[in-house]
């Protein structure tokens, strides 16, 4: 039998705890594949967030630090400033990054901190049981928006990529999705680019990955992929918001 694909070295053998149909596993895998392809596993330090991916340090087979809720970009800043030759990435969900850690991500981007952020946006708080996130869509029902998110009451969902792309220190910002294979491949390409720009010392890089949460959305995994496509893509358009090429850097 010919082996055509194998688990990346940058993932451990541990069985992931993610719910069936959750796309964290895919995003972990493509991030790990990027580390393998760039040959940087030995010099990479990842920062795990608080939330569903809090245990990311069990899955990524590289040095890892676990950060307090929202503080991953600050922790990554400390690591990168001490070891500028290391590749440093944060892996954060939308509650972590867009809510409690909004200041940390904005200022890491503003400083042009030479780190890469993989930002997983599934429009809901997963680990705490499906509360409204800053990225929850209008009319989206969650445990803390039981009548649907009312913009007049709860405000508007935050478009993180658009917001951060206004900052000159953010050299590469791209929004991707993992709802089907072509998009997964595009997502991987974007994450790879982000790491490459970091290694070139260009500045802050972030890839926002639209992701699913079948458990807290209350729909099955296959329907979740459609829900993402039908509801998230119109509000969170895919594409590149900032790149060194565009800015002539």
């Amino acid at each position, binding site marked *: 039998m010919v082996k055509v694909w194998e688990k990346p070295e940058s993932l*451990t053998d541990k069985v992931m705890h993610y719910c069936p149909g959750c796309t964290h596993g895919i995003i972990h895998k493509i991030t790990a594949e990027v580390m393998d392809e760039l040959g940087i*596993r*030995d*010099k*990479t*330090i990842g*920062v*795990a967030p608080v939330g569903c991916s*809090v*245990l990311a*340090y069990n899955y990524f*087979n*590289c*040095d*890892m*630090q*676990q*950060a*307090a809720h929202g*503080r991953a970009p*600050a*922790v*990554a*800043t*400390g*690591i*990168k*400033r*001490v*070891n500028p030759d*290391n590749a440093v990435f944060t892996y954060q969900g939308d509650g972590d990054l867009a809510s409690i850690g909004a*200041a*940390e991500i*904005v*200022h890491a981007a503003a400083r042009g901190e030479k780190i890469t952020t993989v930002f997983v946006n599934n429009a809901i708080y997963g680990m705490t049981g499906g509360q409204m996130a800053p990225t929850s869509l209008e009319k989206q029902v969650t445990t803390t928006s039981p009548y649907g998110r009312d913009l007049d009451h709860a405000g508007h969902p935050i478009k993180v990529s658009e917001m951060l792309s206004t900052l000159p220190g953010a050299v590469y910002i791209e929004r991707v999705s993992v709802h089907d294979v072509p998009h997964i491949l595009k997502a991987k390409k974007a994450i790879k680019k982000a790491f490459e720009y970091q290694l070139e010392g260009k500045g802050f890089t972030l890839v926002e990955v639209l992701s699913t949460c079948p458990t807290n959305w209350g729909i099955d995994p296959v329907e979740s992929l459609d829900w993402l496509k039908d509801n998230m893509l119109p509000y969170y358009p895919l594409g590149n918001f900032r790149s060194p090429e565009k800015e002539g850097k």
Partner: protein
Amino acid sequence: MGKTLMKGNEAIGEAAIKAGCRYFFGYPITPQNEIPAYLARRLPKENGVFLQAESEVSAINMVYGASGAGARVMTSSSSPGISLKTEGISYIAGAQLPCVIVNIVRGGPGLGGIQPAQSDYFQAVKGGGHGDYRVVVLAPSTVQELVDLTMDAFEIADYYRNPVMILGDGILGQMMEPVEFKPLNKRDSKEKTWATTGMKDREQNVINSLHMDPEGLENHNIDLQEKYAEITDKEAKSESYKTEDADIVITAYGTTSRICRTAIDQLREEGIKVGMIRPITLWPFPADAFEDVIDSASKFLTVEMSLGQMVEDVKLAVDGRKPVEFYGRTGGMIPSVEEVKEKVKELVGGEK
């Protein structure tokens, strides 16, 4: 090496550099701003990094990252800023990372004021953040001690893999005194094989404070307590002043101890036998020093720039065997020599 006249806050900055600290993350707050300003000037010249964070919360988490990456790192702040840092301090203690945190205390609660105080004692020595953790707390009383204890703090932090706090106040930070930078009193600390520097030829290193299994977390806490017991056993430090024949034994630290020392000298001239135990470590609290005087002293008096925080630890040390009285001012008010003398005389008089 000769003596240099230095402002307390700047002396802390230079001491950190002399101790090998090359990374500082902070956020401005009065009355400690000369520390970051000094390090902003000095660290780039030492191939180090000074970075002004967007908040105290961010600054302490930068410290966490830098310490996890193996660096000697420091942050400094003042009371309301330290409150913001307590989240990070709990994580740093949980993950057993070494770092030095300077608190140049001002009056509180809330925004309080900008004048010196000692009202962060509880926060410093009892935790402040969540969980069963301890931070080593050092209490300098002179600019020279700011230097010596800051340098020691880095060695203690690395040796025990634990955060160490320098608890000063606005007076110490702002005053100028001659100081001498002595060689670093090096400890035999283990190599930082746990640091996240890239795997290279070893297994993955993980810096973490999450323990989902309650039994695992209990065991982690028990391990921490064993470390804290060792620190209590080995690191408790105090200075005794004229306690040999003292009838009244004052306890005071930092700036307040200087006021009490003058009061003691003057009271002695009047024939009143009074002395002082000056804690240099506030945690671990130097309880043993009280055993030396527990039989000879008739009363204890704690003097603080707070409304009675350290007095609880003095009462624990005395353990009900002798009366413990308290005198304090707060909010940025400083007890005067006269006030301390009056209080001591009241205690002496009360015995008659």
